[in-house]
């Protein structure tokens, strides 16, 4: 009834807009750091200089150096680039099959859907970490199995959301009307389905990237992901942890970078969801 619909309080749109803006800004800054940083910063992230072991922040080294005397600013920039790249690849590898299979299941229904649904359930029942560890066992320290393993656990979410939303859209009368007017599946997909599922997939992608960043760091931290001396944010934390008493800021730097990366992605996703 109009009476009560009218007084449904308008959500403060500005709050959501500014959160999203902050997220985008943060990601642009971090993205700039990870793309431009490795090019501009002259020092090699793996070059050791034992004379500068645990050099303080602000001296010869802009953000100090670790226990091997490696430049932290260089290692952070390379680490951020790696995290971004891994997260992006993982997200793509999860989103592409997830969305395509979701569309397929919604469009075809019947046996196709039942089969896909069964596979998705099986994958969900497997512990994600196990899957990654299993694949890593074949080729330890490689990027390939790491991101493949993550993508294998993350695609289900894309698949489920795409399938459910697409099916709701397809069941609406205006789709039936469009079919009767002679529009083909391609037109219906581009003009009627995509505008609805597009924003949702964008949101999910941001969440998936955040998940991937945390997962990669966590796996490196327990020494099963990428191997040293690769500058990876998670393994940097672990390597510096024994020196926490002497150089606490050094440990916190990679941790802060992970935090900011994930925060930026989450804020961006929040805005999309509204």
């Amino acid at each position, binding site marked *: *009834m*109009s*009476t*009560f619909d*009218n*007084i449904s309080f308008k959500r403060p749109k500005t709050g959501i807009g500014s959160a999203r803006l902050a997220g985008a800004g943060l990601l642009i800054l971090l993205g700039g750091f990870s793309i431009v940083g490795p090019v501009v910063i002259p020092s090699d992230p793996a070059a050791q200089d034992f004379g500068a072991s645990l050099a303080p922040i602000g001296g010869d080294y802009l953000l100090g150096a670790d226990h091997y005397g490696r430049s932290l600013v260089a290692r952070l920039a390379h680490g951020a680039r790696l995290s971004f790249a891994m997260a992006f690849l993982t997200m793509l590898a999860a989103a592409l099959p997830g969305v395509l299979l979701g569309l397929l299941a919604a469009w075809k229904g019947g046996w196709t859907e039942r089969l896909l649904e069964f596979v998705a359930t099986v994958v969900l029942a497997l512990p994600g970490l196990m899957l990654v560890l299993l694949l890593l066992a074949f080729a330890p320290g490689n990027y390939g199995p790491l991101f493949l393993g993550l993508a294998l656990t993350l695609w289900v979410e894309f698949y489920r959301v795409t399938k459910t939303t697409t099916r709701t859209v397809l069941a*609406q*009368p*205006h789709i*039936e*009307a*469009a079919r*009767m*007017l*002679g*529009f083909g599946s391609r*037109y219906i997909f581009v*003009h*009627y389905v995509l*505008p*609805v599922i597009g924003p949702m997939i964008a949101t999910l992608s941001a969440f998936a990237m955040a998940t991937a960043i945390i997962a990669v760091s966590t796996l490196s931290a327990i020494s099963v992901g990428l191997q040293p001396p690769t500058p990876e944010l998670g393994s940097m934390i672990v390597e510096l942890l024994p020196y926490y008493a002497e150089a606490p800021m050094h440990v916190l730097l990679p941790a802060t970078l992970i935090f900011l990366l994930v925060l930026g992605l989450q804020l961006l996703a929040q805005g999309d969801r509204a």
Partner: protein
Amino acid sequence: MNIQVPSDVSVSGLSIHSAEGAIVSDVTLALGRGQPLTLLGESGSGKSLVAQAIMGNLPPELRATGRVLFKEADLLKETPGQRRRRWGRSISLLPQEPWLALDPTMRVAPQVAEVHRYVKGRAAAESAMAAKKNLSEVALSTAEGLYPFQISGGMGQRAAIAMAHATDAELLIADEPTKGLDAALRDSVTARLRQEVERGRLLLTITHDVAVARALGGTIGVMRDGRLVEYGPSERLLTAPEHPYTKTLLAAEPSQWERHPGMTSDKPVVAGCGLEKRYGDKVLFSGLDITVAAGEIVSIAGASGCGKTTVGNILLGLTNPDAGSVERKAGLSSSRFQKLYQDPPAAFAPSQTIRRGLRDLTRLHGKEWTDVERLLDRLRLPGALLDRLPGQISGGELQRFALLRALLLDPAFLFADEMTSRLDPVSQKEVITFLLEIVSERRVAVLMVTHDRDLADRVSTRVVELGHAFTC
């Protein structure tokens, strides 16, 4: 307009302003015991705003001036807190489409009991007893343990009335209480409201259905563009209306229409033979023969849920029958079989402007944009509407766009599925008039589904009564 009624609620000089100016101006009316008031008008006429001003739930950006006296108290002078305290105590609202307003996760009886328990502050056991009594008063004892999705629209409306009983509020405001109900359910709801009046409750009803106003009696106010254009006792107003708009409104009632003469029929465009459809082990219909020939309108009548729409969908090939066959006249392409939907906004993609949709359609079928322009003139649709989204156009206009869209494809058969049931009477008459003209101009075969028996009788060549397979 000087009529003496015992006035327990009297509104004088009520105006409602938004930032842009007055939306409702200078409304004066009164209702009393045994004298219910019904506000008639199309959507956007301001009738709901008047009710909201009395209830006290106007949107915050709107401001009401004037006087609303309820038992000697001027409601407009009260603070929002004081007004809120009246809700569910001295003023109660029957929401539009109550089956949507009920809590879907809660059985009916506990929902009624909540009023006793939390509004009246009674003990749990006592509340449950009182709720049972309220439900039996509206003959709903059988539905106590059911969830809202298990009950019909009419039962949902009765549950809302039971809640109003529980509040024991003196003033009952019913906002479009019969929206979405078929004729039989509509009559049972109005009869129930009439009983409320006889029990001494004050009743204010908002509706666009003249039949509801007639059944309720009392006083009728006709609203248009934020003004009360006519106001008086129902017997006088309905038999001898003075204002031209009231006359239009009354003439738009299907029962007042002229009978549309039946056409001589050609060969059938589409024919269903021995059709049967079942859902689970429930047989909707079986052995149904139906033919529709060019230039004739065939109506299917029957209570809601009896498979009327299914028959049409089977003829269109959208649903497969469990038995029987459908034959179409040879040589017709499938795009010449079109459907017109009950809820016009649902039949258009919400994010696409009308222009875009029509342009893509003309391209797809190799038509010219001038065809669209010709039809716009024919259906008297202003071109300015083309750049709006479906949600920004009134139901009547959107339904005419749906007709336009179908006509672009030179239809041989149209299935009109309750195409006017959500429109006010004046828009309904407009849309149906266009449909009739087009049927005779272009010799289109039309299958019409409607729950309005008067409408079916007036416009159709034949009416097919669908069996009473089960009652609803």
